[in-house]
Every structure is written in C-alpha cells, then in structure tokens.
C-alpha cells in the first residue's frame, strides 16, 4: 500500500509535539510526513526563551532529539515556508520551489508579535520578542544601549523586561492598561505585582498610550505619550500581544475569524476537512489559545483523528502559574469574577508582599477562579478544586489564609476524582497515575518514566508524589527505605543520629540504633557519614573495617586484585619536573600508566605490598592522595583560562586549584566531580559535572548537579555573575546539604531529581536561607576543610598502619596469581588462559 502524504506547515513547539505524537501512533505507518519550517532551526522551547540571556544556548533550548527526523522517516525542509496551497489540485508550493502533492495538511504556523502602528515603530532598535533571532537582535542592540523599554506589560512583556534587565540596562515597561498582566490578574494582584517588580529595579508605567517614537536627546529614541509625558530609551521591544499567522490560510480560501485565526471545529479541521490547524494559529469557538498546553491538546486531537479515533478539542483551561523575575504569579479560571453572582475573598499581606484572591460561586460551593501573587504554592490545590468541581470547605477563605495553627487546608489527593489532570504538559490524569502505580511503578522516577507526568515543566512534582504516596498507602504497600537489615533508618536518618548524638564510631551507632554485625551496605555508608561529620583518619582502628576495599587500602582495586594509584594534580596543572618525578616513580615500580579523564595520571598494577613504598616516594616528592578511591571529591577539571587563552575571561586554572584544595578529602554519599571553564566556550565541560563553574565577563556562573557517565544529566544553572567569595559560599552550602540529605550512593544528579521542589527549592535553601541553616552548613564545611589531612602521608608515617599492607601476615612472598604480560610497551594483567599457561611452564 503506498503511503499518503501529510504536509506539516510549521515546526514550533506545537508542530513538533504533533510530530512526536504521530511517530508513536498507529497512523505513522500510513503517512509519508513532510515538514516545512520557516525558521533556520527546528523546534525550540519558547516558554523558556528568556533563559537564553542567562546562558542557555540555542542548542539547549532545542526540543528535537538528535536524529528524530531521520529515525522516523520524516522529510524536513528547513528555512523554507509554504507559500501556496492549491486546494483544487491538492498541491503545495514552497518558497524555495518545492511542489508536493498532499493528502492531508496540518497547519501549525503559530503567531507573530503584534506591533502597534505607532509612527516610528519601524526605527532601528525597535524590536520584537518571539524567536531566537529576535533575541540575538535584542542582545546586539543592548550591547551599546543604556536604557531599554518594553511596550506591553503582559506575560511575555515582563519576560522581555527580564531579558533586558539581565543585559544590564536601565529597564522600563510601558503598559496601555491600568495594570500589569491585565488579562490574568485583577487590580489588587496587579498592584502587588507592580510593587514587587519595581523593587527589582524595573520602572513600570501604566495607562500610557504611546503616540510617537522620534529621535531622543540623551538616548536613541524618545517615546511620547498621550498624557504629554515622554520617555527616552535606546532600545524598544514590542510585546503587545500576538496575532495568529493565518495569511496562508486566508490566501488559500480557508475560513478565518474576523480578528484573525484559522477557524477550526472540535476535530481541529479547518473549513477544508483535509486541512487541520493547531496551536496559536487556530481559532476555536472564537478564541485563540496562546498557551502551549491547549496547543498540545489540539496536536493530540489531530493525531487521534488521523489514526481513526474520535478525540475532540472542546476548549482548554487557561489557568497559568509562572515565575516572572522571581515573582510567583498564578491565575485560575474566572480571575476577574465575571460570572454571575460570583463572590470574592481577598487576602493581602503587605509585609510579605503576598496577594491572594479567590472567586467562588454564589452558593459558596464551587471555586470559579483565583489570582495569586507572591506565593503561588496553593495553585495545584486551587486548580483541582476549580477544574473538578470539588465542593469547597465551609469557610472557603481558609484556602488562602495562612495556616495559623498548623492545620492543613490542602486538598488531599484522595479527594481528587480519577479524571483530575495531574500533569497538564502531558495530560496525565490521576487515573493514569493510579494505573501505573498498580502495574508496579512504586517510585517517583519509575512513575515519571512510565507516565511522562512531571517531565515537562515539573510544576506538578509535589502533587504527583502525594498521589503516589496516598495510593501506595491505600494498597497497603509499605515502602521500605531502611538502609539494610541492621539499621531501620534511611541514610539521612543515620546522618542525623550521628550528628545529633555525637556518635563517633560504628560500634556505638550499632549498639544504640542497630542490630547484628553490620554488612557491606551499612558499614561503608556509616564510615562515610562519620568521615563527613568528624573527618577522622579513616584507617583508625575503629574505622578501618568499615571501609570498602578501595578506602581500606587507599587505592583502587582492579580485576586481578592489584591496585591503581592516583596522586592529586589539582586543576590538572603540573610542572615539568613533577611530571618527570611521576615518570620515574612509575618506572621504578614497573607500573602501567594512563592519563585519566580528570586530568591526572593513573598508575596501574601496584601490588598491595607496594602501595606504601610507592606512596612514600610520592609523599617525599610532595604529592598528596588524589582520593580516587573514595566516595569523595575527585578532581576539578579546568581549561587553561585567561592566563594563556585568547578567549578566556577569567583564571579558570587558579579557581580550579583553589576549589580542589578546598574540597579535597571531603567524603560524601558518592563521588563528586568539578570543572571550571574560563569562558562560555566551556572547554572544561563544566555542565556535565556535579559542580560546574563558568567564567563570564561579570563573574562566575555556577552550575549544579550535572553528570556524565551512564545517565548523563545536563547541570542546572544555579546562580550567575558571582564573585569568588560568594561562589565558594554557595558551593560550601550545596555540598554540605548534599552530604546531609542524599541517599547512599546517590549522585548529585539523582539527588536533585528526587528533591521536592527541585532547583527552586535548592536555591531557596542555599541562596535565601529559607530553612535558616546556612550558617550550620558553612560551619560543617569549614570543619572538614580545617581538619584535612593527606591520608597517605599519615599512613606512611605510621609503621603499624604500614603493616596492614602486607599481603601475607606470615610470609614475605607475593601473590603468585598476579601475572603481567607486556602489551604496547607496558604491563597488563594476564588473561585467565595466559595465566594458566605461564604458571604451568613456570616462567
């Protein structure tokens, strides 16, 4: 059967979501898909566009996985727009001259920014905020400007203002309406929002009707307003709303709305049943839906239609929750209390700058809408009340009043109907979640992987967890988080017991809180906790039996029972003479030598009894333990930085050495890797590390919780433009918190993923000191830094400790099972058959 041809016009967020949905659908087999994308790049995340200014690259914003088009057999025409749809002959014509016969078309042409026709609107440095190219233009314009102004105080306008503010310009927002975000929030909320945004240094001008833009005196432009006032500015960004891109539909004779938008029915079909329209270009029920979630819903509807299903699109909830310049804002349903008989409750707290308003039905049973500014933590609960028609409690204002006596007014997950939507990004209902839990997804990561819930914006993570906990409890499943059979506690519990009870040995902890003898799970975990808390020498008599073999012998055991040895080379910087010394030591003991990924040198093939001899030589030559054997800070990788590099903006090597020397020896739930890059070219690959630092002209950008290896994770941007002291202060706090709260063998990446509230929560604890523990966290790190010792130096200086490295307690012989073969000029362990042969002939 020959395939039908489906032409998709537009590859924005909704267009791409459609393609992904189609690829997984049964309809994929029936269609040859051809995509036209007018922009020079494939779909990217426009919701998080402003992060481009805080360092996120265009590649990172991309929504398309590498190889997506190829592996799904989709033909992509990049940089090419469809200019004509010949509906009579069912052929489309592209700008670059491609003509294709189609069976079906999906139009996902999106929208364009509306620029009010003010005289002077087309002057130089009058820009819009929509695409990456727009951002590049804004970025270029702000380089030489001092003042930037955004026309439009809506959601996107405030995003644009943030971008201008981040570029270091004096920032103004000019709004025609009497308040900011007039669509989503009421007067009271708008006033609170304004005061918070002004506090951040953005000048807000409301009730301003711009009449003209001319040459300025101090700045490039002068904006004149209807009330006679004026504003001088160098850059103007228009963000006065969006308009659907319906020109092609118009020219093709499809029905469009009076004020624009391609008219669609409940199946998302246009007036031509073979042509669908989805996303912001589509007009349903006289409305344009300028959010991504309804667009995705339309995309799913069309996929279902193509597969022969009967899904329909019947409008969408336009509730939103977002963070604008660090200010939480949320709007639900009928925020303006326009429903008949609606009653309003308002809570305003001027000192904490919180504004909350709920709109309820006349009988006080149903929640109709809400506005939250300054604290949007109640959003999920309120949204569930509103969307599911759940009956309100007797005094509805309790939902927005602060809990005075610790009572909880939150909506228990049990009260939600099965149809309640938990994740709006991926349309996952409570029913879907419950089904996944029944099929065995008992952990948050498993549940996310199975349902995709909470993998989009992540806003529903807390709700998802509470649904999971509630369901598991109902099913009688007890989640055993005990570390092992000897301790009925989690690692975090044990950490607290050790710290609070000032417990200094495993035996003491076992006697007080455990049973049995311990095992290879709890012993190293407790050994690590004791080391993190008290930083004792780990080979002290009472600790030595706790350590994994690598820690016991301060080296890394290899497959044949020999060890590898890694001296510390802080920041990867080493003198030629130290390099010669290392070479001589390697030669002396006949070791295999390799350069590691962490910019140091690894010696292999050291026999147990050779370790103290090798280290005596290393310590004498001034080397220290590299802690390659520990669950501890490993290396701080660096690029050469501003000292030598033409592009470097700061001394990355110097900072790397400083960081490595500060945190060396810190024991943690798992190993910790750092990197420092001297500029945003990022040669040190800092964004794949637990702690990544990148120099900018304005200071250090700090990235956290990245990972390479088996499960790569891109690090999150934690803070920007830091000076040296603040950088170190934040790292102290983050690492201390990680040591305190992570599970056994949990890398920072997984720690972050499992943290309720995620990155924002970590920021609130570390930057805003929400829990009031920052002093403690710093003190904890200072203790570790102050009590550092080189474990190898301590060991080689103590004859009793050196005895522990004898292979046999009663003989000086060596292990005859360790046999080496030469390969490429160095030794390697003999394979089993080689070893048998060599032993037999007695070589």
């Amino acid at each position, binding site marked *: 059967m020959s395939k039908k041809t489906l032409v998709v016009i537009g590859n924005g967020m909704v267009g791409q979501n459609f393609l992904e949905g189609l690829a997984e659908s049964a309809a994929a087999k029936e269609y040859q898909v051809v995509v036209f994308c007018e922009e020079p790049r494939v779909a990217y995340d426009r919701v998080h566009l402003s992060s481009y200014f805080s360092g996120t690259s265009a590649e990172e914003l991309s929504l398309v996985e590498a190889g997506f088009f190829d592996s799904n057999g989709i033909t992509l025409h990049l940089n090419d727009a469809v200019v004509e749809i010949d509906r009579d002959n069912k052929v489309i014509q592209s700008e670059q001259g491609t003509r294709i016969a189609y069976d079906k078309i999906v139009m996902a042409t999106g929208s364009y920014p509306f620029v009010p026709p003010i005289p002077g609107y087309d002057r130089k440095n009058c820009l819009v905020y929509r695409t990456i190219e727009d951002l590049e233009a804004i970025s270029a314009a702000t380089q030489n400007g001092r003042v930037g102004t955004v026309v439009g105080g809506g959601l996107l306008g405030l995003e644009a203002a943030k971008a201008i503010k981040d570029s270091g310009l004096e920032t103004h927002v000019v709004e025609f309406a009497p308040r900011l975000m007039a669509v989503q929030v009421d007067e009271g909320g708008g006033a609170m929002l304004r005061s918070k945004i002004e506090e951040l240094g953005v000048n807000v001008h409301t009730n301003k009707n711009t009449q003209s833009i001319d040459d300025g005196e101090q700045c490039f432009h002068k904006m004149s307003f209807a009330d006679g006032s004026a504003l001088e500015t160098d850059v103007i960004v228009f963000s006065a709303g969006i308009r659907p891109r319906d020109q092609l539909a118009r020219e093709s004779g499809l029905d469009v709305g009076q004020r624009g938008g391609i008219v669609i029915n409940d199946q998302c079909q246009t007036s031509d049943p073979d042509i669908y329209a989805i996303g912001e270009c589509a007009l349903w029920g006289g409305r344009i839906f300028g959010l991504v979630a309804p667009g995705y819903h339309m995309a799913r509807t069309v996929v279902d239609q193509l597969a022969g299903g009967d899904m329909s699109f019947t409008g969408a909830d336009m509730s939103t929750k977002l963070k604008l310049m660090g200010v939480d804002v949320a709007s639900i349903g009928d925020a303006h209390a326009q429903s008949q008989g609606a009653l309003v409750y308002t809570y305003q707290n001027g000192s904490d700058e919180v504004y909350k308003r709920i709109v309820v039905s006349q009988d006080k049973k149903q929640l109709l809408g809400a506005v939250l500014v300054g604290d949007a933590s109640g959003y999920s609960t309120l949204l569930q009340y509103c969307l599911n028609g759940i009956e309100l409690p007797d005094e509805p204002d309790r939902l927005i009043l602060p809990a005075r006596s610790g009572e909880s007014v939150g909506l228990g997950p049990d009260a939600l109907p099965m149809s309640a939507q938990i994740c709006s990004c991926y349309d996952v209902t409570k029913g879907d979640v419950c089904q996944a839990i029944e099929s065995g997804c008992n952990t948050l990561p498993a549940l996310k992987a199975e349902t995709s819930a909470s993998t989009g914006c992540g806003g529903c993570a807390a709700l998802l967890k509470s649904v999971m906990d509630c369901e598991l409890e109902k099913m009688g499943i007890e989640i055993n988080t005990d570390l092992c059979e000897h301790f009925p506690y989690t690692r975090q519990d044990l950490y607290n017991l050790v710290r609070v009870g000032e417990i200094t040995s495993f035996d003491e902890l076992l006697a007080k809180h455990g049973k049995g003898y311990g095992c290879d799970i709890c012993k190293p975990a407790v050994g690590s906790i004791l080391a993190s808390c008290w930083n004792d020498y780990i080979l002290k008599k009472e600790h030595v*039996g706790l350590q994994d*073999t690598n820690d016991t012998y301060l080296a890394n055991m290899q497959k044949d029972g020999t060890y590898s040895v890694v001296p510390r080379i802080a920041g990867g910087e080493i003198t030629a003479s130290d390099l010669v010394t290392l070479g001589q030591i390697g030669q002396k003991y006949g070791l295999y030598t390799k350069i590691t990924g962490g910019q140091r040198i690894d010696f292999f093939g050291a026999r147990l009894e050779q370790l103290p001899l090798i280290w005596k030589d290393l310590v004498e030559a001034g080397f220290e333990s590299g802690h390659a054997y520990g669950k501890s800070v490993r290396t701080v990788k660096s690029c050469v930085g501003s000292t030598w590099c033409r592009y470097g903006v700061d001394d990355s090597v110097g900072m790397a050495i400083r960081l490595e020397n500060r945190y060396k020896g810190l024991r943690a739930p798992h190993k910790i890797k750092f990197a420092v890059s001297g500029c945003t070219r990022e040669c040190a690959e800092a964004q794949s590390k637990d702690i990544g630092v990148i120099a900018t002209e304005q200071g250090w950008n700090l990235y956290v919780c990245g990972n390479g290896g088996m499960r790569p994770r891109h690090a999150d941007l934690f803070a920007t433009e830091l000076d040296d002291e603040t950088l170190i202060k934040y790292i102290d706090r983050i690492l201390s918190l990680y040591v305190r709260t992570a599970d056994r063998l949990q890398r920072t990446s997984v720690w972050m993923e499992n943290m309720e509230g995620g990155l924002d929560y970590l920021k609130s604890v570390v930057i805003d000191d929400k829990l009031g523990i920052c002093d403690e966290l710093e003190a904890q790190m200072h203790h570790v830094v102050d009590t550092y010792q080189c474990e190898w130096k301590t060991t080689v200086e103590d004859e009793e400790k050196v005895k522990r490295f004898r292979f*046999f*307690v*009663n*003989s000086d012989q060596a292990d005859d*099972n*360790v046999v080496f073969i030469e390969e490429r000029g160095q030794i390697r362990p003999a394979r089993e058959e080689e070893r048998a042969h060599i032993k037999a002939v007695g070589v």
Partner: protein
Amino acid sequence: MPEWVDVCSIDDLQENSGVCCLVEGKQIALFYLKHETEQAVFALNNYDPIGKANVLSRGIIGSLSGEPVVASPLYKEHYSLKTGQCLEDESVAVDVYTVRLNNHRVEIQA
C-alpha cells in the same frame, strides 16, 4: 587429624576485618569478628571463585540474617564465614578451615 599449624599472633589480625596468611602453599583469609563480648576467628580460602583473584581477605565482613559473612571486594557476592557457601549462587562455595586461638596465637588445620 591434620596437625595444628601456628600461623601468627592475634595482634596480626584486624578487628572486624580480614588479613591473609600462607599455609602450606595455600592462601587463607583470616577474619576476626569482635562485638562487645563475642569474638570469633574464621578461616576461608582467599581465592574468589567468581572474580578469579586472591582477594577475599580484603572484603567487608558482617552478618546477613544472623549468618556471619564476607562480601567479595570485587563483585560483592557474600560467602558464609562458617561454611564458605556463596549466598548468591548455590553452586559456588570456597573452602573453610578449622582455626583456633591458642595463647594469643592463631592456629589452623589446613
């Protein structure tokens, strides 16, 4: 009855950990379990039959459901200190030896 062979002093052992000795060409791992009032010495062949290296003396010791065990430092299988049986694989076991403390000395029947 094989003879008791004097191996080393009790001071050569490591509390709640292992050491290795050489007895008649055999590598034998000695584990010294000591908790409050209990103490016991166990002797196992040092060769890890799964990792194929002489490493068992360098494993962590402890107990699983009351059974004293050592965990191989290579791939973490557990072996009973009493019987040498591998807890993860029924078909695998290591040799065990009779061991005793005699006047501060460790003696073995190998």
